[in-house]
């Protein structure tokens, strides 16, 4: 298993008046090269689960092993380093920085890795060609279309060739055509060996034939129907 969670719980503000139990007893395994959808309404805990898988923070209790490394009690710095090497993120609304150019946005994850400009540009060029947005490379990201923005976000998630792609409500603000295009690209990536976890409550996503398994989360627990 590339992703293995066992009895994972997450409590925000533990011991304080505003304590929130976001996840309780989550057991989940995701094999390498598979595509899984985390389904559930807003506030169900999908993003929290995605954040734990994405090494953004460790679980409060339980075991979480990502790409062979146990996350529990791992210091913040090591979580970041592990995230850099392992996880590519695609955000809701894509979270592209609008003042930066398309090329700069795509290469952002490479800056703290000390990748020299020439190599950064070369790697980005390959992705720009792959997603047919080479002509937009020097455009400010705030001036490109929604479909192009989506491809920029995917290119940024792939720039460091991480084995796991996590997508958080990627189609929430897209029309049907763009949502379909997004899922086609995910399917291609899966075929290329990437492991993909998508948090979404969009039927276009969780009913897509490329999704091998849909995990329903409700009130912070995996819901078995």
């Amino acid at each position, binding site marked *: 298993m590339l992703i293995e969670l066992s009895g994972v719980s997450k409590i925000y503000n533990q011991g304080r008046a505003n304590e929130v139990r976001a996840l309780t007893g989550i057991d989940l395994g995701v094999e390498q090269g598979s595509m899984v959808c985390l389904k559930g309404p807003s506030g169900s805990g999908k*993003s929290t689960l995605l954040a734990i898988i994405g090494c*953004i923070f460790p679980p409060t209790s339980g075991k979480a092993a990502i790409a062979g490394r146990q996350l529990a009690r791992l210091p913040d710095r090591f979580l970041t380093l592990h995230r850099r090497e392992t996880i590519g993120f695609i*955000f809701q609304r894509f979270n592209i920085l609008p003042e930066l150019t398309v090329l700069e946005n795509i290469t952002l994850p490479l800056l*703290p890795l000390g990748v020299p400009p020439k190599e950064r540009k070369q790697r980005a060029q390959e992705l720009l060609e792959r997603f047919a947005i080479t002509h937009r490379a020097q455009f400010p990201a705030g001036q490109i279309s929604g479909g192009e923005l989506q491809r920029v976000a995917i290119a940024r998630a792939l720039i460091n060739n991480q084995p796991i792609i996590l997508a958080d409500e990627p189609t929430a603000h897209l029309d049907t055509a763009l949502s379909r295009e997004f899922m086609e690209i995910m399917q291609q990536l899966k075929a290329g060996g990437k492991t993909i976890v998508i948090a979404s409550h969009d039927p276009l996503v969780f009913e897509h034939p490329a999704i091998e398994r849909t995990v329903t989360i409700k009130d912070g627990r995996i819901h078995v129907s």
Partner: protein
Amino acid sequence: MAPRNLEKQLNILDYALSSLWRRRMKSLSVLLVFAAVIFLLASFQMVTQALTDKASQVLAYTPEITLQKMSAGRQEAIPLAYRDRLAGIFGIRRVVPRIWGYYFDEVRLANYTVMGMDVREMPEGDRLDTALAKGTIPGPEEQGRVVVGQSIVKALNLDERNTFSLFRPDLSLKTFTVSGAFSRDTDIMTNDLIVMSLADARDLYEIPAGLVTDLCVYVANPKEIGTIARKISAILPGVRVLTRPQIQKTYQVVFGWRSGFGSICLLAALASFVILAWDKASGLSPEERREISILKVLGWETSDILAVRFWESVIVSGLACIVGMTAAYIHVVYFAAFLFRPVLMGWSVLRPDLHLVPRMAVGNILLILAFTVVPYLAATVIPAWRSATVPADSALGG
């Protein structure tokens, strides 16, 4: 190929530059205010240093010891006969009598300094001609001829004519012919000065024969100034003995005090700027919060975000230093420090048209950096901790 860590720092520096460029209006406004503060501080330092240097250069031509007779704490005329009583002190090269006084011009409401002495009696009196822009110093036989400072030339319109008259105490007029003018390089000392023969000065002030205002003592070995001064004090107890190092020190203290006073006022401006910078750096806009959380999800560490903030501050403060110090240099050299002249030069009516050559010692530059760049870095980087610890998960949905 550069090592990865160096390459990382270069990448972060590159990002900091692009970040400043993206917020160029904000960056530019901070830079301009900061440069203005540095400009004021550096100007003060440069002017003070230049004035002190200039005073030292000019004082090098003054007598090593000046004697003035005091009575009831006030200066009065000193008998020429005192010269003979100093004859026994070994090490005195020459004693030259001088009449030094002030003349108030009621028409122009200005004070002139009048100095009457026979310069040829001075050990290196011939060299005084080098302090002149034109003409020669009048000799004892050249009655009615004077050398004047640049402000006198301007005040009495002596470019167009070469004679002028001053009133004696009995209100009769004494006419002078200008035989030369001091160079601008000596402005700090000669600006309002009229040099004439001892006899002319005696006539102008109606000082009786056998009396002068002070005696200038020239010594053979400058290292013996202190010893000779003590011996003179012992022989002439009612006489004030002023040594050149004492006068130099007085100038330094006066300029230093004025500069210090001005610097304290400027430090208040600096403090306000630092508080403003702190306030700006600690408050995060929603866009900045979002940017930081995105960067953190993409694998940037807290230290990387701090490094971006650090480089931004270094670039802003570095540029502000270059702009501020260059502007200060131009202000002092080409505009004769017009902003600070009233404070540093005093409030006399005839202010010198200074042609200053600023000198900035490494210590002064470090002092300015310590008072400007270091507080700015602290005021921007320390609160950046708060911004750099924005949780990465705030970039994710609910």
